[in-house]
């Protein structure tokens, strides 16, 4: 039991990732997204139970619900751009769930990163092609990072302490801190934008951001 990602942080990671997808896809898609995520969570719950027949039944039920959700998306009368937003996001959430079950030992981190990357692509796509609202984009981006962080925390905590131990306090503290930091930076960014302190042309902003990024890369080496 030791080397499996912990339950609470895993569930939070999946829910936050799904929240990001839902934010950018719009509330009209709440039903299919909700169904898919609910199915994935039921599947996760089934696999976490570890007792033969019940696991199989719950797992099959979860797969069924998740597939129904995806079928909803496929058959609904959605315009192309909207589905382009939704598909990578939903697949990303599914990959993230697969990472945390885990579907394959040793692949947890790689799969979680891949899942989060797909959700982020869906967020970016929504900003680029669909012109999503500024706040929606910011919150969804914070959500992607928070869900990736929660997933990695679940993986390392599972590897070091295991699923059998009492870990909820630590999980909630870590995930809570990351979400709080996200909220603070979203608020700061929004504030700076609204202040509209400078009439900087885009080129100036680009140079500034480029310098900031170069600084970051140096910091991380």
């Amino acid at each position, binding site marked *: 039991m*030791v080397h499996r990602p912990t339950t609470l942080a895993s569930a939070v990671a999946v829910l936050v990732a799904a929240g990001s997808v839902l934010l950018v896809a719009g509330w009209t898609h709440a039903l299919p997204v909700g169904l898919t995520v609910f199915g994935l969570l039921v599947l996760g719950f089934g696999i976490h139970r570890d007792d033969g027949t019940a696991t199989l039944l719950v797992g099959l039920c979860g797969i069924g619900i998740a597939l129904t959700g995806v079928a909803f998306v496929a058959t609904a009368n959605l315009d192309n751009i909207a589905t382009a937003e939704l598909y990578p996001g939903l697949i990303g959430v599914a990959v993230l769930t697969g990472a945390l079950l885990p579907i394959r030992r040793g692949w947890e981190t790689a799969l979680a*990163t891949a899942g989060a990357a797909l959700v*982020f692509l869906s*967020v*970016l796509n929504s*900003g*680029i092609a669909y*012109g*999503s*609202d*500024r706040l929606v*984009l*910011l919150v969804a*981006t*914070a959500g*992607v*990072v928070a869900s*990736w*962080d929660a997933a*990695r*925390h679940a993986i*390392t*905590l599972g590897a*070091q*302490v*295991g699923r*059998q*131990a*009492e*870990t909820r*306090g*630590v999980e909630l*503290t*870590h995930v809570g*801190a*990351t979400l709080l*930091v*996200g909220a*603070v*930076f*979203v608020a*700061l*960014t929004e504030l700076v*934008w609204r202040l509209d302190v400078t009439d900087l042309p*885009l080129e100036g*902003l*680009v140079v500034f*951001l*480029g310098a*900031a*990024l170069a600084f*970051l*890369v140096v*910091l*991380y080496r």
Partner: protein
Amino acid sequence: MTTVRRTHHWRGVVAVALLAGAFGVLLKRPYVLLAACLGVGYAIYPRLLEPPAVELALDRRVSETNPSPGDEVSVEVAVTNEGEETLRDLRLVDGVPAMLAVSEGSARHAAVLRPGQTTTFAYAVTAEHGSHQFRAATAIARDVSGRTEVETTLESDTADIECRREIPDPPVAETSDPFPGQILTSGEGEGIEFARTREYRSGDSPNRIDWKQYARTGTLATVEYRQERTVSVVVCIDARPSAYRGIEGGPHAVSHGVAAAQELLEAVWEVDERAGLAAIGRDFCWVPPDRGTDHERRVREVLLTHPTLSPQPPENPESDYDRAAAQVRELRTGLDRETQLVIVSPLADEFVVESALELADAGRPVTVVSPDVSTTESPGSRIAAVERRNRLYALRRGGVSVVDWDTQDSLARALLGAKRRWSR
């Protein structure tokens, strides 16, 4: 010992900033560019935090220090934060004795611990024969972002678990004469166990003449009995770096060796013979054979505390052939002519085979007890298992008694099986 290390938990978050920044600029989407700020924010956040200062105290209590084999012993661990700082992500792994398996609960725990606060957790272990010492617990404290982690060990003077089999216990009946080799020597003369009759030679004691045969046949014959001699046994544990290998999730061969040595030594003392202990590895460990309560206590102490027999593998995993050879030479000089040698080794390399064959060639009774820690998981481990079998074969062929011990089974059963094979 405290180590501070980076976890690289946030490595990759810069990609969010780079990707959003690049798309925002290239496609002229200011809102997407703005999202890059979030990536920057998350990249800076972990750097604002300091690694936690860890000052912890551990208190461990066991419900029973002298259990019988198979009994459940519950262990309660309390960890107190004695520092000034709240530990927001504290992970604890208790140092369960190497040979004991956790049967209930988990020996691992995670907690958020404010200064002065105590967190407790409990688990149960199943007692096994032998003396079992708790190892230091490991505490890993991460800062709340998870960027750095501080790992430290927590010592506690917990009582050892001393688990002894009761004498009338059935497994002990099997082990009443468990150690390999012969207490009855092959020498013949005076004694109590009949060996053979031979032709009378003048000077033979009259009470050894077979009078019944004289009455039947009229010829004098002398009865020979098997001679009994006191023997002494030295159990030598192979604790070289190569012996620190085991089946995943189970104890390594050195821990098995310590448990086996204890069982063998006690079986020898049980039949009132002398037994001593040796170990080769980091340093040469040597307690000459003897008997008596003080000696037994001393040997048990050495088994639990000698650095050569530590459950922690040595930092340098390279085997030092010269050092091991010097230690075997030292062992040879310490052995009496009559002393039987039992070597406990996983036979991970040729060294023990060479040494055992050399000693057997010199006429000393040598037995090798080999805990089987080989697996069939990977091609490499399968090759290692084949090599081990070849080594066992080489030892048998060289006149060394061999006990191939499947560690899932009791040592007593392995010894019985081996003795049956030898008597064939």
